[in-house]
């Protein structure tokens, strides 16, 4: 047993258990201590992960579990997301009752996501998926004082169960024809036996199942309601962590395990991406609640990121990874700014951001930068990320798709700009300044710095993601 391969997972689980125990020990009102401890612990784990050699592929449990450069990259993304979300939650005013278990639950989503990206067979993949989903359901419903939060939890678990059903159906068909659940065997089977219609059916089911996780249209119905109802830090985590995990599995399945089948279902992915970009962006326009607006915007971004899969090349994959990274920091920055405002006003409506430039110049600057990044306007990172994705799509001959993508991102700019306008031009209803707590300020500053660095000097991060991509697709 090579326990080195699952060192990160072991550490993370231990941290979660410690936090759970700590909840009992810590006095009421001091629960945030657990948050600081959790953030420090996760940071240490991130450091271990970054320190270990990327190109060293190891397996565990007789090949059920694989730790390669690709998995390492995504684990680092999950960890970064979890750290920022944890710190953000410390500054979140609601949830005083349940903060103790909150932090340990955030940590417990991580082994689930990590198992998803590292899974080397369908059973492990499914276990990881459910571990992540169920923890997220609890986190979504954790704000017991809010009806919306409970409603969101119920919606999320019902729809997740349905998508899991679809996914399991697809997996069982694959098992039925290939006689194995291990990815390596499935790959060999497809190579020798070719792609039969039954296999295609199964792949379509699997894509649909993960389409739910990445909230691609038409499997996106759950996300606006869940995003709106969930506590804001969890919304941020759903948007960045759960989505990144979904993409990581889609990438591994389509590019590594079943590349032969991809050719026949490419058209489905293209249709999914186009619909996602169109519907996500168009329905974001009329939203008056900022969390719903960001939910639709995150749906639309799933469409852009899918372009990387459609390109089906190493640089397409690198572009996706780059985009997921910048998307993480832009979203975290935006949600942190939303928390800073809602802590004070108690409202998620976009109109409550009126005159924010006067009440909190810092939060409005961060929200501006984050929205610019999501909109793809320099100097924020989104511009470079979109450029990589669109360039790769055009290089692979999807000119019309690039037109559609760029066209829809103009639509996107419209609704981002409406927020920017309210924030920078509108008059403040109250003149009291909004005081932002130190943890929130820290999260905002970090995400702004990363967004700017990736936008102004993207070379090093690009090299990193492209290198990870080329280690994955040799």
């Amino acid at each position: 047993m090579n326990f080195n391969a699952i060192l990160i997972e072991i550490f993370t689980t231990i941290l979660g258990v410690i936090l759970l125990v700590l909840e009992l020990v810590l006095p009421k009102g001091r629960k945030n201590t657990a948050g600081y401890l959790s953030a420090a612990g996760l940071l240490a784990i991130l450091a271990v992960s970054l320190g270990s050699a990327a190109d060293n592929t190891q397996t565990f449990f007789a090949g059920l579990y694989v730790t390669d450069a690709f998995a390492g990259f995504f684990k680092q993304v999950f960890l970064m997301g979890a750290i920022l979300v944890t710190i953000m939650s410390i500054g979140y005013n609601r949830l005083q009752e349940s903060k103790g278990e909150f932090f340990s639950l955030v940590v417990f989503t991580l082994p689930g996501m990590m198992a998803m990206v590292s899974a080397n067979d369908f059973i492990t993949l499914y276990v990881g998926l459910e571990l992540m989903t169920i923890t997220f359901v609890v986190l979504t419903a954790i704000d017991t004082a809010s009806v919306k939060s409970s409603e969101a939890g119920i919606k999320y678990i019902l729809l997740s169960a349905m998508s899991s059903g679809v996914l399991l159906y697809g997996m069982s068909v694959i098992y039925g024809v290939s006689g194995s659940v291990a990815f390596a065997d499935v790959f060999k089977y497809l190579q020798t036996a070719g792609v039969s219609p039954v296999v295609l059916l199964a792949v379509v089911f699997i894509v649909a199942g993960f389409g739910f996780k990445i909230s691609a249209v038409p499997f996106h119905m759950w996300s606006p309601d869940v995003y709106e109802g969930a506590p804001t830090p969890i919304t941020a985590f759903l948007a960045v962590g759960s989505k990144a995990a979904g993409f990581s599995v889609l990438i591994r399945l389509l590019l590594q395990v079943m590349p032969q089948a991809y050719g026949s279902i490419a058209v489905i992915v293209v249709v999914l991406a186009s619909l996602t970009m169109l519907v996500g962006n168009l329905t974001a326009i009329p939203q008056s609640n900022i969390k719903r607006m960001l939910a639709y915007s995150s749906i639309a971004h799933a469409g852009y990121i899918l372009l990387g899969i459609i390109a089906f090349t190493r640089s397409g994959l690198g572009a996706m990874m780059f985009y997921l990274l910048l998307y993480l920091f832009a979203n975290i920055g935006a949600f942190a700014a939303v928390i800073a405002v809602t802590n004070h006003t108690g409202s998620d409506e976009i109109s409550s951001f009126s005159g924010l430039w006067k009440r909190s110049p810092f939060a409005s600057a961060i929200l501006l930068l984050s929205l610019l990044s999501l909109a793809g306007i320099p100097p924020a990172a989104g511009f470079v990320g979109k450029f990589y994705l669109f360039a790769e799509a055009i290089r692979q001959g999807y000119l019309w798709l690039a037109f559609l993508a760029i066209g829809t991102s103009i639509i996107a700019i419209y609704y981002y700009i409406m927020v920017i306008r309210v924030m920078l031009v509108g008059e403040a209803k109250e003149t009291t300044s909004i005081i932002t707590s130190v943890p929130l300020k820290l999260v905002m500053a970090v995400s702004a710095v990363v967004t700017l660095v990736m936008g102004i000097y993207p070379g090093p991060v690009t090299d990193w993601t492209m290198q990870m991509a080329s280690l994955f697709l040799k």
Partner: protein
Amino acid sequence: MTGFPILSLIMLAPLAGAILLLFIPDTKVRAIKATAAIFSSISLLLSILLYINFDRSLNDFQFTEHISWIPRFGINYDLGVDGLSLPLVFLTSIIFFSAVFVSWNMGQRTKEFFFYMMVVIAGVFGVFMARDLFFLFLFLELAVIPKFILINVWGSKNKDYASMKYTLYLLAGSAVALIGIIAVYVYAADPAKGLGVNTFDIASLAGIKYDAAFQKFAFFLMLIGFGVLVPIWPIHRWTPDGHSSAPTAISMILAGVIMKLGGYALIRVGINFFPQGAAFWAPLIAILATVNAVYIAVVAMVQKDIKYVVANSSISHMGYVLIGIASLNASSITGAAGQMFAHGIMAALFFALVGNIYDKAHTREIVDFGGLAHQMPRVASAFLIAGLASLGMPGTFNFAAEFSIFTGSIQAFPVLAVLSIFAVVITAIYVLRVVQQIFFGPRNARWDNLQDIKGVEMIPVILLGFVIILFGVLPDLLVGMTNGSISVIAQKFINLKAGGIF
């Protein structure tokens, strides 16, 4: 790169000023204005140095700077100016300097105003200096949102509508241009057809012989994408509202330099990269340009608001630039480049004066005025200078530029050129009518409390008026500079014809 990074300094001065502003408290208005003035002076002084040190005998980029940026994708921070871009860099720094002083009495959210304005200017400098197509586009995009905020916060009349319309038009345009740019990049990276390497270097990309179908396709994208900025009729609709609603300094920047970004990019990227594509689409451009010049001049004639007159006259004048570009010969393109400079200065002067009148009188309706020369003699004489420049009076640089455009275009499109020349007559009608109705006639007692421009307000007016006349009397100071670089582009069209394609 060796030597003094003068271009980076010119470009980074406004950016450094903007960042410095963030650390000055809102209440220290004097310090904020002083900062803006100092950094705009730095840009202006360095641009004059640049102008003096420019070697006219060379056709290539000069003062080049190179920093490798994203080597994997062939993106480099490459700056440089040639005879085409140097006058525009010079123009930008003049407008920047003037715009700062025009905004001297800005009372509302002063710090943010100068912050966003300086970001816009840095972006404009970047476009004119970039030798790398990626950076050219990046700088173009950088300025969009700040301009939206500037119009929306500090604008007048229907600013909400105007700023959103403006932003969506420009972003849609740049989206189309972006597809074209990526297509060129992908074409160049193709080992069979292009160079086989990832590069955004403008000089290398211009050296490729693109196949004819691709040229037609890509040039069309560039035409739409950059044409929105110029603007070409019928995608000019953002301009009258945008220019009229913007605060004075921003109107000056919009009409003075932002429109030139489009013309510059059309020459630098459009006709320089795709001579065959340009030749294919030239008749269309020439027809639209004639509509621009003549029809919009008629539109300008019926406006009731002075600022709308000036805004429409800008579109009409850019029609000359377009017909100069479409004629595809050395004389006409040189004229187009000159006209961009001449119009930039003239439009900025117009907007500065109109803004000054509006700030004091709180109205821009032409019928409200009359005999204003009694109360504001300096404004009246400066307005007359701008007006005469606008109708291409000999002695102003506009004359030299328009003359060069029409000598060139009459060879390529005789009928359209003659039609466009009639736009000059229409221009004369509306300009002189405005001058007459506002400034001449009996004294109107209602405006007796208006003060003529004085003190700091004089700085931009004198500077801009001086530039119009200086280059009007000695046009070779500027034209002699552009000739060399443009002859390289014009040579491509001579070769094209010699090749017997047409």
